[in-house]
């Protein structure tokens, strides 16, 4: 005897229902794409010259560091955690890298050092969370202060970067024609990060365990999954991404400054949430986070088009965030009602 609990009729309706039942977790991402499109259309209608290859390209190029941070943050949020240290770690690794380069270390050594230092900071947060039972919020807050302090210890003032390789990352423009689509190595780096992360999350056991842990940590443990290792690794990934963002941001500004990236952790979290990742964990996609970063970037560009104060970016992001969190609550409540 067989039990079939789902409707077996293969009408269009059943097909649609099945499609939705499989893809329900993508709905918030579609919502983010929808908002992005609406913003594009509105901005184009208002300014007339918004949707140009140059402006669109710069959405990626100006926010490459944010995109990299958002990828790392997505891992952590998927496990149900949070990482407030990313902005400060980005600043610290940037300062460290710049000063090591100034001291004459080769770039081939400096970049790995920046990544390892980022990883170590992430590991520190993970260990505090996992072995000392500290709330992720508090643990990463501590790491944020530590990293910011360390950044100041490296130098109180800005360090200029002269290294050719680093500057090449930003100054090289691969361009179809002048004024048209363009991309820099930093942009490529950010996109690569997204692709690798998306593949890891979708096609590896580690990636799937991230979702399982975020869905129900207790169950994941009883299912025999390596919960501790996975959570630690999520924070390490976030740290590595912060280090990588340090490279990208240093290249972008051509210098490192210890006050870089203040508040960036909040922008990152906002982008991730707008991209449809649930703050409670277990649901979300890196591609969504990328859309979230683009939404953020579009708001910033639109506001500079208007010539208004950049503080409006934050206000708009705040409002959008609110809308999204409410939308998410509704979606979650709906899916509970089956």
């Amino acid at each position, binding site marked *: 005897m067989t039990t079939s609990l789902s409707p077996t009729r293969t009408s269009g309706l059943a097909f649609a229902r099945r499609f939705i039942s499989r893809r329900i977790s993508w709905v918030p991402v579609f919502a983010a794409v929808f908002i992005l499109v609406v913003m594009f259309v509105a901005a184009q209608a208002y300014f007339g010259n918004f949707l140009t290859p140059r402006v669109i390209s710069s959405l990626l190029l100006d926010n490459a560091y944010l995109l990299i941070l958002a990828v790392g943050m997505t891992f952590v949020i998927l496990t149900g955690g949070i990482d407030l240290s990313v902005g400060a770690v980005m600043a610290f690794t940037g300062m460290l890298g710049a000063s090591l380069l100034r001291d004459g270390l080769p770039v081939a050594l400096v970049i790995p050092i920046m990544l390892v230092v980022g990883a170590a900071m992430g590991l520190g947060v993970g260990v505090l969370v996992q072995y000392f039972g500290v709330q992720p919020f508090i643990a990463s807050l501590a790491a944020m202060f530590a990293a910011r302090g360390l950044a100041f210890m490296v130098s109180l003032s800005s360090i200029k970067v002269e290294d050719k390789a680093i500057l090449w990352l930003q100054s090289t423009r691969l361009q179809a024609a002048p004024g048209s689509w363009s991309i820099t190595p930093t942009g490529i780096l950010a996109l690569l990060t997204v692709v690798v992360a998306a593949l890891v999350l979708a096609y590896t056991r580690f990636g799937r365990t991230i979702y399982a842990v975020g869905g129900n940590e207790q169950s994941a443990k009883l*299912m025999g999954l390596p919960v501790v290792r996975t959570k630690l690794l999520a924070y390490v990934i976030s740290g590595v991404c912060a280090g990588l963002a340090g490279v990208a941001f240093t290249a972008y500004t051509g210098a490192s400054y210890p006050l870089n990236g203040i508040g960036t952790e909040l922008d990152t979290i906002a982008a991730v949430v707008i991209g449809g990742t649930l703050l409670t964990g277990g649901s979300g996609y890196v591609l969504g986070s990328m859309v979230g970063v683009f939404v953020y970037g579009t708001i910033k560009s639109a506001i500079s088009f208007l010539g208004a104060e950049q503080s409006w970016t934050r206000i708009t992001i705040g409002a959008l965030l609110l809308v999204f969190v409410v939308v998410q609550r509704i979606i979650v409540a709906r899916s509970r009602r089956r």
Partner: protein
Amino acid sequence: MTADSEVPPVVEMRGITIEFPGVKALEGVDFTLRAGEVHSLMGENGAGKSTLIKALTGVYTIASGTIAVSGVERTFRGTADAQAAGISTVYQEVNLCGNLSVGENIMLGHESRVAGRIDWRSTHREAARHLENLGVQIDTRSLLSSHSIALQQLVAISRAMVTDSKVLVLDEPTSSLDRSEVEQLFGVMRDLRDRGVAILFVTHFLDQVYEISDRLTVLRNGKLVAEHPVSEVPRAELISLMIGRELDELQALSRASVRTVDRTDAPVLSATQLGRKGSLNPVDVDVYEGEVIGIAGLLGSGRTELARLLYGADRADTGRLEMHGRPARITTPRNAIDNRIAFSSEDRRAEGIIGDLTVAENIVLGLQAKRGWLRKVRNPERVVAEYMDALGVTPADPHRLIRELSGGNQQKVLLARWLATAPQLIILDEPTRGIDIGAKADIQRKVAELSNAGLSVVFISSELEEVLRISQRVVVMRDRHKIGELASNDIEVADLVDFIAHDTIKKPESVA
């Protein structure tokens, strides 16, 4: 098919003691599991069965004692460790991830991979194959949380079958399955047993124990009471071994259903053509004051769906509701509560327990929600004590955290929460799931007593004996339709089974 004692034990636990702050959950328990046997672990709620299982798989650290697997002493550090040594476990509560697909839940950690990359196609194919062994055909890519608890239980069992294990541990796997699912599961279990797998099985259904197991071990209050081949222990003796006294009260609990209900007034709740596309075809149900309406049917027949529509947990798209003859609008649980309708859902863990609150707080919660958060509940201690006593919650300490209670006792507390709100109608979806035989009688008695005092009850259960014993009328569901309604005092379980299967009651005389 009694296992030969010459066969070396696959698992040998000696003198296992486990302590939690304030309780000794296990004290010097010995347990032996042999290859090719189904071994039932028996005991009341809170006897220590689940604790023994978690001691074996290393979820809990043992205070003293030894565990040997195939003659080698082992200490596991958790499920994964135990699994590596060939012990697969399905824990009591469904422990899966609702945010992942059915197939993933089955295969997580064992996905088929090509060069480190998960091959989803073959992973889902594999998952579907394991489900099919249990007779389940569903879209393995659908989200786990969109399925019923019974289905989730089957998914959890399938998960345990993925690895080739020499020991299979099943802690109350059948608690929300209906007969055909149980048969299917037993078929698989027999097959595994014949191939030499040792199976540890926990259930509160004595019929199932006698049907499937070769040997049984009885625990009481954390201590080992007895270990026997099943054939040597008659049912009555088994019960007294478990509860430590003779159980004549249980026999004395006659059919509460033999009682006439006054149906002259308008029904407390009356549903006309109540339905929802894709989940339930339109149904008529009347519930009168002081009446217990049973709902019977197989898994997925629409029992829970009906309950959810009556309570407003799902929104009906056809039909109407009347209360006491007047139209009523119940589209949200809030409306239902305002109309003094309570609903104890089958998924108590997701929708009920607040683990970090005490037993007393969990009970008072329902009352508090009803009174509004600002008004104090008068005399909570008395209410708490009354229901803990009536349902036999053990340990009888209202200040213990609810997550420290055994599975069955948590269920009792949740039931107490709903009963304490003094509703005029209560919908109980599988209220005795996972509850031991003595406590089941307590719950049935309490429901009978409350309905005698005027409470109306909608009682859903996979156990047909229970439905018949407690309700005056039985609504029978199949394939999301109501196929009929029977007065319960003139039918037997076999008749009900017939009706569920064929729409008709085949009385021997009518055949002749």
